[in-house]
């Protein structure tokens, strides 16, 4: 039995917002794979819940006429991986969330929960940062749209106002068209383990000229919040594809990220791994673009 005070079920976004306003102490539950664990651990013991699982509008994936891709916050990981729009346009996101936990958890956990939980180890988030994803938040009125980078305030803290719910993650067409991405999760076990360090690289290569046109590099678990390596990105843009580029990303990333010591791994180890996985991810994106990485 879970230690739950009151349980309210919302059938629509408006109902969810209404319930959250009526019961300010209640917490949203979607897949429950974070919330239920925290109730079990005692951290959220005695909490009230507003369940948003029955809200149809926040499930599924659609590519709009504009080319923008809308991902419902209530979409579970396995449905993202198996979705034809994701496979065709942003396969890197499907591959990233296919590295969460094990199959059962991927059938339970939602991408919205992964973002709102605020964990730096969240496997969907580095890629969403590298895709410059926008978050659609609803408050029952107009709502607001924020870049995912602004949503993260600190460790485990996100910019979700009381009474707000995340409804969609939007990937604008200009952010993915012509880009290729690769996500590397470094963990101690292949499955059922959270990332010790993770890196998502999304890049655009001018294959005929052999030039790296644009690049976005995001690390998980390398700072208190998911972290974009802006300095490294700026230095790499316009560089010719080849060894010098890979040496530069490796070196600069190690200077730019600031991971901490934890029982999972030391700071030095994370720095070493960080340079290496950024390098490998970049090489992979150039291969995916059809370029010759050497």
């Amino acid at each position, binding site marked *: *039995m*879970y*230690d*739950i*005070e*009151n*349980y309210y*079920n919302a059938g629509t976004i408006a109902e969810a917002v209404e319930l959250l306003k009526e019961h300010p102490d209640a917490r949203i539950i979607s897949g*429950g*794979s974070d919330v*239920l*664990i925290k109730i*079990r651990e005692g951290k959220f013991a*005695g909490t009230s819940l507003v369940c948003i*699982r029955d809200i149809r509008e926040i499930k599924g994936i659609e590519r709009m006429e504009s080319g923008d891709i809308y991902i419902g916050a209530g979409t579970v990981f*396995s449905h993202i991986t198996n979705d034809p729009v994701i496979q065709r346009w942003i396969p890197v996101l499907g591959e990233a969330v296919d590295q969460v*936990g*094990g*199959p*059962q*958890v991927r*059938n*339970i956990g939602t991408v919205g929960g992964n973002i709102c939980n605020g964990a730096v180890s969240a496997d969907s988030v580095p890629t969403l940062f590298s895709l410059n994803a926008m978050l659609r938040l609803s408050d029952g009125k107009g709502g607001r749209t924020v870049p995912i980078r602004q949503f993260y305030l600190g460790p485990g803290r996100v910019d979700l106002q009381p009474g707000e719910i995340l409804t969609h993650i939007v990937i604008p067409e200009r952010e993915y068209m012509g880009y290729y991405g690769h996500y590397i999760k470094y963990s101690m076990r*292949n*499955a*059922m383990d959270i990332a010790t360090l993770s890196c998502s690289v999304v890049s655009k290569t001018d294959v005929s000229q052999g030039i790296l046109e644009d690049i976005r590099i995001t690390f998980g678990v390398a700072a208190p919040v998911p972290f974009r390596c802006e300095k490294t990105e700026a230095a790499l843009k316009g560089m010719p594809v080849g060894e010098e580029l890979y040496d530069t990303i490796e070196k600069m990333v190690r200077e730019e990220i600031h991971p901490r010591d934890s029982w999972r791994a030391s700071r030095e180890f994370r720095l070493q791994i960080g340079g290496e996985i950024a390098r490998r991810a970049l090489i992979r994106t150039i291969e995916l673009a059809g370029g010759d990485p050497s």
Partner: protein
Amino acid sequence: MKKQMQLVQCTVNGKEVAEYVDVRESLLEMLRNRLGLTSVKKGCEVGECGACTVIVDGETIDSCIYLAVWAEGKNIRTLEGLEKNGELTRIQEAFIEEGAIQCGFCTPGFVMSATVLLERGEKLSREAIKKQMSGNLCRCTGYHNIINAVEKVMDENFEKKDET
């Protein structure tokens, strides 16, 4: 903590079920305590071990981190629903043939994961099978024989397909 009861109507192993459940109850508890389906094992209760794996609308989930009220309208399958007229399914037989069972505590969960995988009808590499079975832990067998059993039945299914 308040007692808040709610009616849940769903299909369990092909039968229509209507149960009043406590909103704080997990599906694991409902299946074991109210329906007597004790193949669904209570292991870690935090989604780590897969002993409580059941199939909901064709997908495996850990029933310990799934509230019973979420079962409303769903089609749920547990190990008890697999055998037909006292006959085991091919994957259950293969677990026995391959020595994939020792204490047996993890077995129902593994069998449910394998069942979905085999029903999908894809031919997977050994590595891919391992990935699909990675949400289940076994403290006895060392996994080798479990993966052998799944691989064996998958191969058989494809040999049959080739013949037809």
